[in-house]
């Protein structure tokens, strides 16, 4: 079955969505990611959607759900890399993703997660050995 890979970067998880997701793939990601947060005790999730050419209400809901589920599991989610045309369309569609943290790119998203955790020494790849 198709799956979107979840990468571990220190205490954070990184998901890069690179395909035009069908609905089941989005639901599978939701399940996989929450399981991975629990298994790894991850404190932060970065979802990179820079490759996505559109986000409809189903995907928007999936993103909002992941963010809410992660929060309940004590992890912060930051959605990064949304294209301007996608942002314009989402808001006109009526979906402003309340409660979902965003950043312009992965680096800024990482900074945001580190800032929220109140430390600077995690998730930079030096602790993975």
């Amino acid at each position: 079955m198709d799956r979107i890979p979840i990468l571990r970067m220190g205490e954070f998880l990184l998901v890069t969505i690179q395909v035009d997701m069908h609905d089941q793939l989005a639901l599978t990601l939701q399940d996989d990611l929450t399981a991975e947060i629990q298994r790894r005790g991850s404190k932060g999730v970065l979802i990179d959607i820079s490759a996505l050419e559109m986000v409809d209400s189903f995907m928007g809901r999936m993103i909002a759900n992941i963010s809410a589920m992660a929060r309940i599991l004590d992890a912060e989610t930051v959605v990064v890399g949304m294209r301007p045309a996608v942002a314009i369309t989402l808001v006109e569609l009526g979906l402003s993703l309340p409660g979902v943290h965003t950043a312009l790119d992965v680096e800024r998203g990482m900074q945001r997660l580190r800032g929220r955790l109140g430390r600077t020494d995690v998730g930079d790849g030096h602790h993975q050995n």
Partner: protein
Amino acid sequence: MAITRTERVPLRAEQDIVLARQGVRRLAQELGFGIVDQTKIVTAASELARNAIIYGGGGEMRWETLNEGSRRGLRLHFVDQGPGIPDLERAMTDGWTSGTGMGLGLSGAKRLVNEFEIETAVGRGTRVTITRWK
């Protein structure tokens, strides 16, 4: 107004939503739509294709490219033979859903296009037609 090209795309399974999106993207690009306009019509198509499959029990999308004077447009028809929508006014309201969605499908799609028409008959099905002009 002249219809320059037309084609049908089946909407049977969830994967067909992806195919419908990709087809609409390609057409919008061929018509020279800007990136925001492309994104809007593709997103509207995704919402309506999903509606036709999930609520309408499947159907088809028919697309037409249009010429009217100097302007060009893309018109999409989403047709299903499902249960129809008993209370159309309510179904067009933001946040109202009969299923598991967010209730933004119809009302949201309408905001993303220049023209929006819906015909529905209980027990017979629903047809939604959207047009975006360049």
